[in-house]
């Protein structure tokens, strides 16, 4: 049945990777991911996990090692943050089309400049289109559960794609929470051994990652994109089996008091917990407000989101990323595209908040909802608004 313990989320994620019986971990420490890989290196060093822990010289090397080890048929894990994810960037685009099911935790953190070790989603949004399946965890339990789910889905032969579990840096990574750590038998029942469709084998030579001349490049991109889209079936199946074994249910999109809500906040990650408190506070005052939280970011669960948004007339979308010079934040842009010209589509207002560790408080959520309501009556002059920025 697992055991509920008070544990730092990073340590719990490392324990989940151990329970998943990872074969190879190649990682470079970076704040706020450090505790995850630090603990994994201890677990490997003291013989609790029979794995190869490769202490690489950079994140570029970490991801390169991961590609090689996954290609060789090893269950492969890494974790990073921010500048480390940026340094991986060149290699991040390879495992998707090459169908290498690496699992990675990204402890989300702002990007320099100015240098910031604190939490937002700019690191992952800069890597949005690397072609990995991506989920966002709300709390420590979910971070553990999504890690196990990631191995289950990524390595499924029908999927065979790399997968990222995003956890908010510090707000999740460094917080001690009550978390149910599953039993080894349960995890073994959930997660079969990795049996890759193809592996590097001297007896059966194979070239992975060859050049794609103009006559095949488009087709290769199409094949990868279709694989990402088709992975949703297995993602859902993976959550269904998870619920059967571990008793915790997960969906691509979650709602909170959204029935009949006129205004819906839209969030990703750990700020959703504060958003729920804000919804409660506003509901207490009689406001018709609810919350929709996106858990599965890639492939984007369009139909599930539309269903979750229901009949709400206003969406207040919160992006923890400010893409300079863009029309609005990435989540806002995604949802505007999703609902474009759909009959009965809600009015969508885009807000940027919580950059570089700035707290998004209950009051801020209330401010966002008030603004979205006002904009629904009188169109704003800008396509998005940065919340909580000091003007003077």
């Amino acid at each position, binding site marked *: 049945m697992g055991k509920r313990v008070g544990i730092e989320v990073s340590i719990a994620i490392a324990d989940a990777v151990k329970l998943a019986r990872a074969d190879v971990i190649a990682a470079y420490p970076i704040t706020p991911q450090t505790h995850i890989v630090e603990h994994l290196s201890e677990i490997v060093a003291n013989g609790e996990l029979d794995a190869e822990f490769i202490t690489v010289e950079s994140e570029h090397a970490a991801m390169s090692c991961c590609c090689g080890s996954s290609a060789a048929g090893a269950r492969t894990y890494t974790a990073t943050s921010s500048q480390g994810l940026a340094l991986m960037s060149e290699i991040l685009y390879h495992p998707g089309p090459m169908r290498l099911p690496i699992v990675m935790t990204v402890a989300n953190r702002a990007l320099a400049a100015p240098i910031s070790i604190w939490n937002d989603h700019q690191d992952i949004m800069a890597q949005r289109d690397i072609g990995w399946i991506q989920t966002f965890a709300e709390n420590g339990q979910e971070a553990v559960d999504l890690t196990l789910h990631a191995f289950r889905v990524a390595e499924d032969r029908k999927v065979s794609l790399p997968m990222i579990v995003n956890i908010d840096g510090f707000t999740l990574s460094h917080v001690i929470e009550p978390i149910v750590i599953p039993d080894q038998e349960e995890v073994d029942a959930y997660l079969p051994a990795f049996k890759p469709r193809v592996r590097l084998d001297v007896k059966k030579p194979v070239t992975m990652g*060859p050049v794609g001349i103009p006559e095949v490049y488009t087709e290769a991109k199409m094949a990868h994109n279709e694989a990402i889209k088709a992975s949703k079936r297995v993602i859902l199946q993976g959550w269904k089996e998870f619920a059967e074994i571990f008793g915790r249910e997960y969906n691509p999109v979650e709602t909170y008091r959204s029935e009949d809500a006129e205004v819906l906040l839209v969030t990703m990650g750990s700020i959703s917990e504060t958003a729920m408190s804000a919804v409660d506070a506003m509901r207490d005052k009689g406001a018709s407000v609810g919350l929709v939280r996106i858990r599965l970011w890639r492939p984007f669960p369009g139909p599930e989101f539309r269903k979750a948004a229901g009949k709400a007339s206003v969406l207040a979308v919160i992006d923890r990323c400010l893409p300079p010079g863009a029309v609005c934040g990435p989540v806002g842009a995604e949802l505007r595209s999703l609902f474009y010209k759909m009959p009965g589509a809600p009015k969508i207002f885009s807000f940027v908040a919580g950059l570089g560790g700035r707290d998004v408080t209950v009051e801020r959520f209330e401010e966002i909802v008030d603004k979205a309501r006002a904009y629904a009556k009188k169109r704003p002059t800008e396509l998005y608004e940065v919340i909580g920025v000091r003007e003077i």
Partner: protein
Amino acid sequence: MAQIDAIVGWKDLPFGCHVYEPGSTAKFRTGDWRSQRPVLDKEKCIKCGMCWVFCPDMCYSQTEEGYFEANMEYCKGCGICAHECPKDAITMVPEED
């Protein structure tokens, strides 16, 4: 453009674009990228094989008389052989058509 023996639709691409046949690059005849070709002056050639060693495309093979001959189906016209030849026996001449 390069000649490819198998142009397929996206559904028929091998999984992950992997290539299962060793040495299949031989099917890609890269010779038509060439803008100039190496021409050998047999008078000067001492049959040392430096051109064979340095050609990055492994175009050269030795003839029965011992000279080295570049395969124009693969030669990209890079000029490395001409540059490396100790006897200046190779001249790069522009492809006219």
